[in-house]
């Protein structure tokens, strides 16, 4: 392979793609570092699967280019790309044994039979299915098929492994289990993984680099901790975990802080901004409290409309008295006495509020 050794492993430059009149991708740029686990997170129709398909070569973007290991791969067919895909429905060959499924890619590369069998066995052992070599795909459970699909894609030693909602067809318990295994597997083989999902918990658990997509654009990207604690847009504040959003206008400029006239009253936060600007404040549920604490400010009174007990905490929904358009979502200790219909005063620390421009 030629190409630069220092640049990113995958570089997507201003890629746009349209299906007829529908714009599935709108000037998307993304870099993927070697050995990283990147998760593309977004609702259906956000373009995440189309983006993955442009990497796999199943979609040729109408504009922009895709570089893998420094080589322009924009128009290269899937067979000649250094990528391998794990499909959502696994797409195992039903007429081949598990061993022949895993060995297929090596067979296409002209690897001799005995060597092929050895490497297929190694790949199956790696995903914990050493004894499934002679079985047929229909004899396996969903989770096992998933592992075979992983082994089949990894055995050809791709530069990037593409996973299209790989856990979508599994039940919740198995999904969480496979999630841990995927992460461990990625650390072990060191291949860069790009994983598409609409499950934000999955994204937070797996990603080194989390890419939040909506309407064919990247809304936010970065380490999941950063995307969660300091979301860059209203969308990522509500899609990657819940948030209460307060919209308002910037009022006064202080030394390091600005005052914002929100739907529920004025709030001062440490930030820079220009007066008259429309902004939003996003507050995570765990940062909204029922009593004042340290430097917290009051968000006004609210009427509790819903309390859901979730084991370690209670999820409380409350409608602001001052502005009924605002619904606060708070996570409180499960032993906190609060019930539907209670009138409560809500508090949050300004440092826990994230200022978002529109």
């Amino acid at each position: 392979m030629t190409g630069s050794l220092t640049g990113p492993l995958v570089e997507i430059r201003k890629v746009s793609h349209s299906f007829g009149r529908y714009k599935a991708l709108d000037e998307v740029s993304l870099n993927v570092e070697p050995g990283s686990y990147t998760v593309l997170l977004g609702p259906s129709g956000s373009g995440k699967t189309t983006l993955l398909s442009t990497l796999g070569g199943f979609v040729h973007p109408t504009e922009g280019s895709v570089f893998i290991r420094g080589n322009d791969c924009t128009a290269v067919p899937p067979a000649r790309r250094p990528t391998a895909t794990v499909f959502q429905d696994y797409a195992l060959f039903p007429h081949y044994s598990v061993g022949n499924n895993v060995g297929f890619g090596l067979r296409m590369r002209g690897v001799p039979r005995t060597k092929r069998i050895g490497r297929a066995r190694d790949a199956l052992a790696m995903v914990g299915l050493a004894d499934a070599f002679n079985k047929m795909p229909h004899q396996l459970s969903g989770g096992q098929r998933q592992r075979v699909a992983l082994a089949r894609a990894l055995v050809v030693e791709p530069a990037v492994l593409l996973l299209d909602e790989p856990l979508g067809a599994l039940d919740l318990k198995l999904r969480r289990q496979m999630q841990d295994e995927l992460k461990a597997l990625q650390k072990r083989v060191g291949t860069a993984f790009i994983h598409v999902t609409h499950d934000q918990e999955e994204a937070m658990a797996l990603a080194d680099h989390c890419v939040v997509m909506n309407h064919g654009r990247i809304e936010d990207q970065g380490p999941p901790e950063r995307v969660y604690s300091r979301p860059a847009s209203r969308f990522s504040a509500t899609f990657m975990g819940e948030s209460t959003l307060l919209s308002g206008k910037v009022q006064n400029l202080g030394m390091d802080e600005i005052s914002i006239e929100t739907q529920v009253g004025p709030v001062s936060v440490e930030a820079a901004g220009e007066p008259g600007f429309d902004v939003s404040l996003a507050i995570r549920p765990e940062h909204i409290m029922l009593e004042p604490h340290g430097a917290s400010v009051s968000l006004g009174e609210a009427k509790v409309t819903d309390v859901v007990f979730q084991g370690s905490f209670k999820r409380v929904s409350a409608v602001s008295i001052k502005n009924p358009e605002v619904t606060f979502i708070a996570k409180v200790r499960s032993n906190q006495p609060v019930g539907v219909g209670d009138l409560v005063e809500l508090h949050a620390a300004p440092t826990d509020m994230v200022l978002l421009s529109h």
Partner: protein
Amino acid sequence: MRIAARILVSAYALAIYGFIFLPVVVLVLFSLQATSFPIPPFTGPSLRWYQAVLADQRLTSALFNSVLVALLSSLVAVALGFLAAWGFARYHLPRSWLLRGLITLPLTVSYLIIGMGILILFNAIGVPKSLIAAGIGHVVINLPLCFAIIYSQMGEHQVNIERAARDLGASEWKVLFLVSVPVLWPAIFASFFLSMTFSWDEFVIAFLLTRFDTTLPVEIWNMLRSGLNPRTNAVGSLVFGVSIVLALLLELVFLRRNRQ
């Protein structure tokens, strides 16, 4: 009341099956006749007429011709039908529904019209009557059937299987022969045997398009012109036997498929 209904239903079923199968039973029975006329009383069983059939060179060569035409025309029909179905299922064509309709249209046209059409066309362009001409006719009638059967079995999930093969480095030919054909094997097999069955006992087109070398149904028709004879019963029974075997093979393929 209930007993009366049951008797009535049984009688009705018996009448239907009798209506369908009695002629065949009579045909097979009198093919075993020992004397020269296939009429009661039954004088057999004897295999002398089967011996006569197998000793008759015209009949055995017609039998051979029929097998040849059925095999080759079915192979061509399945190959063309498969490729057409694959093209329609995998690529977006403008007016796809119209083109698909046009491919399946010959299913609704009578064999007589198709045979006459081919005859007139071949006459005009100077193609002589032959087994090849009859074979082409059989491709025309069987291709729509093969296309319809195979196309109906090409689901969306196979698209990803083919993609996976390409993703792992397979060329288009390898995708076709290592993945698409094996995955669709039951449908391909079924349409092949159905084509064989239809070609095997097709009369009108073969009659119109062959001259010296003919297929078995045409030869049987020739025999019938000189009157009834247990030989015709014997050869008819053979034809029926082969059809049954083909139908059973077809059934086996589908049954195996449904159990999976």
